[in-house]
C-alpha cells in the first residue's frame, strides 16, 4: 500500500489539476471582466469551441502551436465583438442570446471539423517549459514549474487582471458600469465602449482557452469543451467576481477532478461508487457556490442592458 502514496501519484494529481484548471481559468477571467461591467455572456462555451477548432486546424495545417493559439484568440475576439453587438448595441436578453452563441459555436465548430478534417488527427502540443531553478525543486518543481508557457501565462493573467480592475481608470470604469451604468453615463463614461471592451476581452480569453485546450490535448472532437465554458461562467459566481476567487474555483474544480480520477485509478474509490464520484466536482462547486457566493453581492447591473432614454 505504500506505493499508493507514491510521490509520482501526488505530483500527477496536483499537476493534472492545474492543467485541467487552465481553460476554466482563462475563460473565467474573461467572463469576470464582462460580468464586472454588467454583461453576462453565456456563450463562452461556443466561443471556446470555435477557438478550439481554429487553433487545432491552424496547428494541423501549419504546425506552429503558438500560431494556433493566436488564431484561436483572434476567432475569440471576432465572436466577442459579435456578442457585444448583440448584448450591448441591440440590448438583447443576455441569457437567451448567450445560448444562441453557444449553439452557434457548437454547431459551426462541428460542421467545420467534419468538412475540413473529418477523422480526428493528432497535432503537436505545447512544449513543456521547465522554469530554470524552480523546476528542480523536488516534488514542488515537478508540480508547479514543469508546465507549458500557456499554463504560466494563464496564472500570470490573474495578478494582471486584479491590477487592471483595481488600479486603472479602465478598471474603475468597468466596476462603475457594472454597478450603476446611469451614474457612469452621467459623467461621460461610455457604457457601451466599456462593455464592448470587456466582452471583447472575454471573447479573446475564451477563444484562447479553447485553443489552449485543443492544442494541449493535441486533438479536436465534436463538443471538445464538454460544457467547460458553462463551468467557467459558474466559477465567476463562485469566485465572487474576483480574479483570485475565479482562480481558486478553477483550481478546486481541476484538483477535485484529478484527485477523484487518481483515487478511482488506485481503487481507493470503489468502482461501484465511480459514477457518484464523477459528480463530486460539480457537487463541491455548487456547495462552495452556495456558501461563498452568498457573502458577496453580484454587480448590480449584471445582465441588464443599458439603453439611454430618449
Amino acid at each position: 500500500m505504500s506505493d499508493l502514496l507514491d510521490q509520482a501519484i501526488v505530483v500527477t494529481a496536483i499537476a493534472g489539476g492545474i492543467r485541467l484548471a487552465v481553460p476554466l481559468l482563462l475563460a473565467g477571467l474573461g467572463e469576470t471582466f464582462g460580468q464586472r461591467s454588467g454583461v453576462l455572456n453565456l456563450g463562452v462555451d461556443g466561443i471556446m469551441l470555435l477557438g478550439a477548432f481554429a487553433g487545432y486546424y491552424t496547428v494541423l495545417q501549419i504546425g506552429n502551436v503558438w500560431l494556433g493559439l493566436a488564431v484561436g484568440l483572434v476567432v475569440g475576439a471576432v465572436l466577442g465583438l459579435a456578442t457585444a453587438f448583440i448584448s450591448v448595441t441591440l440590448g438583447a436578453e443576455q441569457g437567451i442570446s448567450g445560448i444562441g452563441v453557444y449553439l452557434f459555436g457548437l454547431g459551426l465548430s462541428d460542421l467545420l471539423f467534419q468538412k475540413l478534417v473529418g477523422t480526428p488527427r493528432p497535432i503537436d502540443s505545447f512544449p513543456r517549459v521547465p522554469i530554470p531553478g524552480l523546476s528542480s525543486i523536488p516534488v514542488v518543481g515537478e508540480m508547479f514549474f514543469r508546465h507549458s508557457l500557456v499554463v504560466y501565462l494563464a496564472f500570470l493573467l490573474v495578478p494582471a487582471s486584479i491590477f487592471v480592475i483595481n488600479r486603472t481608470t479602465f478598471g474603475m470604469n468597468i466596476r462603475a458600469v457594472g454597478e450603476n451604468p446611469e451614474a457612469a453615463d452621467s459623467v461621460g463614461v461610455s457604457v457601451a465602449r466599456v462593455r464592448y471592451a470587456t466582452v471583447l476581452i472575454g471573447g479573446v480569453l475564451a477563444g484562447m482557452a479553447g485553443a489552449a485546450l485543443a492544442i494541449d490535448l493535441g486533438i479536436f472532437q465534436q463538443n471538445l469543451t464538454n460544457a467547460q465554458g458553462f463551468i467557467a461562467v459558474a466559477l465567476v459566481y463562485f469566485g465572487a467576481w474576483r480574479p483570485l476567487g475565479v482562480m481558486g474555483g478553477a483550481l478546486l474544480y481541476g484538483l477535485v477532478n484529478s484527485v477523484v480520477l487518481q483515487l478511482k485509478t488506485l481503487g481507493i474509490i470503489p468502482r461501484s461508487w465511480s459514477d457518484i464520484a464523477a459528480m463530486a466536482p460539480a457537487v463541491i462547486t455548487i456547495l462552495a457556490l452556495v456558501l461563498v457566493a452568498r457573502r458577496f453581492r453580484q454587480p448590480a447591473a449584471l445582465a441588464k442592458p443599458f439603453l439611454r432614454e430618449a
Partner: protein
Amino acid sequence: MLELRGIVKRFPGVLANDGIDFELLPGEIHTLLGENGAGKSTLMKIVYGLYRPDAGEILVDGTRVDIHRPTDAIELGIGMVHQHFMLVDTLTVAENVAMGLRSSRRPLTDLDVVAERIVELGERFGLPVDPHAVIWQLSVGQRQRVEILKALYRDARLLILDEPTAVLTPQEADQLFDTLRTMTEDGRGIIFISHKLREVLALSDRITVLRHGKVVGEVDDPTAVTREDLARMMVGRDVKLAPDKAPARPGPARLRVRGLRVHGDRGTEAVSGIDLEVRGGEIVGIAGVSGNGQRELAEAIAGLRRPVAGEILVGEVDVAGSSPAEIHAAGVRYISEARMREGAIPGFTVAENLLLVDHGDPRFRRGVLFDDRAIEEHGRRLVAEYRVKTPGLDTPVEHLSGGNIQKLIVARELSARPDVLIAAQPTRGVDIGAAEYIHARLVEERDRGTAVLVISEDLDEILALADRIAVIYEGRIVDVVDRAEADREVLGLMMAGGHPGSGGETAAAAGGAAR
C-alpha cells in the same frame, strides 16, 4: 448665465414641457417649483443633456448651445445633483468623483491627487467627507455632499439640485443651504428643484412655478408670498397644508413597547431599550434624524426584524419575534418607508399589489385558485375609494407616480381595518396633493379608533399629524411631548440628542453624519 426659450419636450402621450422660458443669473438661487410630473426634472434633464428638446433653445452666457450629452453640459460648467444619486455604491468617494475625468497618470488612476482636492473643496464649501470611504457606508446626507463635490470638482458654475432635501433631515438641509449660499457668493448660479414650501421660501432668490409642463407663475420676491400662495400656484386650487383635526379622544393603549432592543443591518444595536405607548384614537409621531433607529423600530413591530430583547404588546398579546403574518393577524398593519422594495412589487399590477398582503384571504380564493372576479372587484373599489390614478387595474405599478403608489399601499393597508397602524415616511417623495390626501386618511383612521404610529424625518409632517411626539436619538426616546406644547426649536435640539433644559448642544452637531 443660463436662458431657456420655449422649451418643448414630448413623451408618448405626455407633453412634459410646453414652451418653457427660464432664466438664471450668476449668484442667484432660482427655484423651480411644481408637483411631481409638472415637468421640472424633464426640463433640467434637457439642460444637462440627458434628454433632447423637441423645440426651443438653450443659451449659456448669451450663446446658443447644443447639449447632446452630459459631458457637453459638464464642459459648459453645468453640474447636476440628481434626485436619485448618480453614485456607484461599491466605489469610494474619490473614485466616484474621478470617474469620467482624465487621470493625470493614465492609464492608471490618480486617486490620491483626487482625494486631496476633495478634502480642499470640502473645507472651502463646508462639505466634509472622507474621500476613501465607500459610498454604501455613507449616510444619505453624506452621499449628497459627494454629488455636489463631483460637480464642484468639475468646476461647475451652474449647479442644478433636483429635490435635494427630499432625503435630508432639517439639520442636513440647513447645512446644505449654507453650502449653497457659499457657492452663490462665489458667483455661481443654482437651480433648486423642490416642492417643500417652507425651505423654498427660506432659500430662494426667485421662484418659477410649473404645472402640467407650463410656467404658471413667477415670484421675484419670495418674502412677499406665503406657503399657501405657492401651494395654490402648484396645484391650481386651495390646498390644506395641514389636515383638519379635531382634538384626539384617545382610548386604552393598543400598542405597548417595553424595553425593546433591536440590532441593525450590520449587527450593532440600533434600538437600545425603547418604551412607547400608542393608544387607540391617537397619532404618535416619532421625530428624529435619519438613521437613529426608526427603521429598525418599525420593522421590529411589523415582524420584519427579530428583536433582541423586550416586549411588543398588541392589546395583551406579546408579538415580539412573531412572523409578519401572525402580526397581521393581531391587527397590525405597516406602511413601509421602502415603498418600491417592501411596500410594493414594481413589476406586479395594481390589482396584484392590492392583494399582496391578503393573498391567502378566503374572500379571494376559490379552492387553490384565485377568484379573479373578487380580486378585480376589490381592486376597483380600492382604486376608486383612495383615488389612485392608474390607467387600469392591470398596469404594473412601476408605471405609476410615487404619490399614486403610496396611495395604493395606504389603500391596501387601511382596507384591512387595522387596530394598530405603523406608517413610516408616509409621504416622502410624494406630491402635495397625494400627501394632503394621505394625511387626511391617517387622521380619519385615528378618528376610527386606530392606534397610529407615524415615523417621519420631516418635522413639518410630524407637527401636522401627531397628537403626541416622541423624539428618537441613537436608538432611545429622548422625550415624549404633547403636540400642543411642542416647539420646533426644542424638538430640533432633542433630535440632536440634547435634552430640554440642558440646552448646551446644538442641533447641527449631529448633522446625520455618523451612522
